[in-house]
């Protein structure tokens, strides 16, 4: 067997004293060969990103540093190499692409100049030659009009284009190793598919070894040759992609794979005939106002929602899926009246909520409640959990004692300890906070629950628990749900009906099973085709394991 390109042996990365654990990465070993994609998978806090940063010499020293172990790169130990040598290696021999291309690129420099810098620091070339080379690189990563893009600033490009430019920059000096830290997490699913394809293509063309950090097993299934699974700073399992994905040995890997929602929609349930919520011809335009008493420049108009109609029956879950900017969240906020729609009707039990004023709306507020996306921003950090959940009850005029009793009951329903009542939100993990958010939404016994990406900020195993909880609650309380998501895997497991949105419009609507089996609109087909790891069924693995 050939000597590996990168050989990490017993790597320990120490955290500052007083942290939750002494080592962020403990005794991690892995090898990366030429022309191979090694995926490091794990949930948040698994130490996968710090492992990558240790290789690049980008740890936030001195607080976080390599305590023990060796990182062998072609006979040099990167754990002990001098800073000057590390600078030479970075960019020319090992380079890195990051999760958020907007923050990784300098906003006031043109793309061309940023690529130019890489050449200037590492190679002696004339400026004309450097520019030609930069244009060629941009062409290699399939950016349209490389002659123009070379003089463009980062904000003029889309997210996917920026990530392509990052890749061009990373590959400028033909490095032996490319480290990719969640490079597609911030991108939409169709863009993600293109970027993954590009990384694979570039890796094959340049014979690069790629160290790919991700939390998404779908992405692993699409591009990995070998996989390392990390948990709590330790490597729990290493193997070929086929072995890990289809025959996982370690119980943690099995749990993780079991938690990945399958793309096969669950069997349809019996449908109720009674419609609870009807949305008709909803329209919303943002902007258009003028600042400075109407004398300022007109703000740019965005038609966020255009003529959206759908109907949800009692006990059903309607999924609204779409990419960023599709208007799906705006629809959700219009329904709960956080945003006032411009026209259309929002019928809850045959009452149109849209034109109601504050006072008239108040009795209806309780019937339609919302679960938010970000479990960290959705709870007031200065209030105790009990107060957060019971505030709605108190506003509706219940006595303090009644509200407290109901709140404790709710904590039990969402699977939290009763002691949570007197604690502050920061004492809880993301998943637990999301449970608190759900309890708050349930406090007023709503008819309709609007959930805006309730699991997208959570790790996959927590995500599975929250989805199960939402399912249980829906059945138990006969709730009707509107579920906003960008993740088709989640939609397949949760929703009875789907509405696919793009640019503020509904492009396709129907039963989940039918849309997955037979998508009619080309955009739906594109979305379904872009889901990472679509040829791999985690549930089949889970069953066989």
């Amino acid at each position, binding site marked *: 067997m050939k000597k590996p390109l990168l050989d990490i042996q017993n790597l320990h990365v120490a955290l500052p004293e007083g942290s939750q654990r002494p080592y962020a990465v403990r005794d991690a070993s892995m090898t990366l060969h030429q022309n191979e994609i090694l995926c490091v998978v794990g949930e948040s806090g698994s130490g996968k990103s710090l492992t990558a940063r240790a290789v690049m010499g980008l740890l936030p020293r001195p607080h976080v540093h390599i305590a023990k172990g060796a990182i062998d790169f072609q006979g040099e130990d990167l754990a002990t190499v001098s800073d000057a040598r590390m600078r030479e290696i970075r960019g020319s021999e090992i380079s890195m692409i990051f999760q958020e291309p907007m923050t990784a690129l300098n906003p006031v420099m043109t793309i061309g100049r940023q690529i130019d810098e890489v050449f200037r620091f590492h190679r002696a070339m004339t400026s004309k030659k450097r520019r030609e080379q930069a244009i060629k690189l941009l062409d290699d990563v399939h950016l349209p009009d490389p002659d123009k893009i070379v003089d463009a600033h980062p904000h003029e490009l889309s997210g996917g284009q920026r990530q392509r430019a990052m890749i061009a920059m990373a590959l400028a000096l033909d490095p032996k190793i490319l480290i990719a830290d969640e490079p597609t997490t911030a991108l939409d699913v169709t863009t993600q598919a293109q970027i993954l394809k590009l990384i694979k293509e570039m890796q094959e063309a340049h014979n690069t070894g790629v160290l790919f950090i991700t939390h998404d097993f779908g992405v692993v299934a699409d591009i990995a040759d070998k996989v390392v699974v990390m948990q709590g700073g330790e490597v729990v399992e290493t193997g070929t992609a086929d072995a890990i994905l289809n025959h996982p040995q370690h119980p943690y890997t099995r749990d993780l794979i079991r938690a990945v929602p399958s793309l096969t929609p669950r069997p349809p349930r019996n449908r109720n005939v009674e419609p609870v919520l009807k949305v008709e011809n909803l329209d919303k335009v943002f902007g258009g106002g003028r*600042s400075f008493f109407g004398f300022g420049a007109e703000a740019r108009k965005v038609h966020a929602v255009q003529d959206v109609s759908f109907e949800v029956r009692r006990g059903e879950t309607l999924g609204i899926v779409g990419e960023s900017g599709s208007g799906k969240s705006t629809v959700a906020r219009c329904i709960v009246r*956080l945003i006032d729609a411009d026209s259309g009707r929002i019928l809850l039990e045959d009452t149109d909520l849209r034109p109601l004023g504050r006072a008239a709306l*108040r009795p209806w507020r309780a019937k339609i409640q*919302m679960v938010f*996306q970000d479990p960290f921003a959705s709870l*007031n950090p200065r209030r105790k959990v009990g107060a957060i959940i019971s505030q709605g009850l108190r506003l509706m005029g219940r006595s303090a004692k009644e509200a407290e009793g109901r709140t404790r009951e709710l904590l039990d329903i969402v699977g939290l300890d009763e002691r949570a009542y007197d604690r502050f939100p*920061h004492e809880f993990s993301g998943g637990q906070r999301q449970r608190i*958010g759900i309890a708050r939404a349930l406090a007023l016994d709503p008819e309709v629950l609007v959930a805006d990406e309730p699991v997208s900020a959570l790790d996959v195993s927590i995500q599975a628990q929250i989805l199960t909880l939402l399912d249980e609650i829906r059945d138990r309380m006969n709730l009707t749900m509107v579920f906003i998501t960008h993740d088709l895997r989640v939609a397949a497991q949760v929703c009875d009906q789907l509405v696919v949105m793009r640019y503020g419009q509904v492009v396709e609507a129907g039963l989940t099973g039918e849309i997955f089996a037979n998508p009619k609109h080309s955009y739906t087909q594109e979305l379904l085709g872009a889901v990472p790891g679509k040829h791999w069924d985690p549930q089949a693995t889970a069953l066989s394991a």
Partner: protein
Amino acid sequence: MSDFWKRFARNRQAIFGLSILGVVIVMAATAQFMFPADPFSLAGRSMSPPGENGFLLGSDSLGRDVAAGIAHGAKTSLFIGLVATLVAVFIGVIMGALAGYYGGWIDDILMRTTEMFQTIPSFVFAILLVAIMKPSIESIIVAIAVVSWPAVARLVRGEFLSLRNREFVQACHTVGMSDVRIMLGEILPNCLSPIIVIGSLMVATAILIESGLAFLGLGDPNIMSWGFQIGAGRTLLRSAWWICTFPGIAILLTVLAINLVGEGLNDALNPRLRERS
């Protein structure tokens, strides 16, 4: 609370500032017992250097005790600094909260008003206000408050702007909470830290403005003040240096102390560090 104190105590400068401030407060509180006589009264020979004729810090051209003036002046400075700041913070929070929370034309009106106040140099504005009303402790407090609130208003507006779209605030809307309750009960507690910090620094500025006004003879004629002492001694600076010097040091140390405490509060209350913990 103990957690907060630990973070505050880690900053040595802040502790240094706090101890000086403590001395000034004790001085103000005990002035009546240490120097029971009226600080304006003639206590002995005029122009006595420090340590002579029973004057610890000397006496001025009329034979008034400089030390007594400093002790009683401490009371004035702290009182005016605190009250003026409280008034300014009160006005600033209301204006900033309304502007940031509602936005639109309310924001336009309130912020353009704020800018109008900010375009006039604050000390000149304060002189003008005191000169129009007649010099008294109330008019000085009003003048200082009027020139200081815009900074608070801008800060609070910014905080409200960023907090009003947070999901926890939206969650309050979905249960039908009233605007006043959301502003006071949900948003305001989350921006208390920066308000406390700016407030503490404003006390120092207020003391400086008060001294400046008194120096120019616009202080309350019945109340002893550090600025008044310096003003009274400025013509004698070469023959009797102590009349100006000691009140000047008192102002310097007090303002320095409050600034150090303010910095310490800023470090200890820094919301970014808090949220990540």
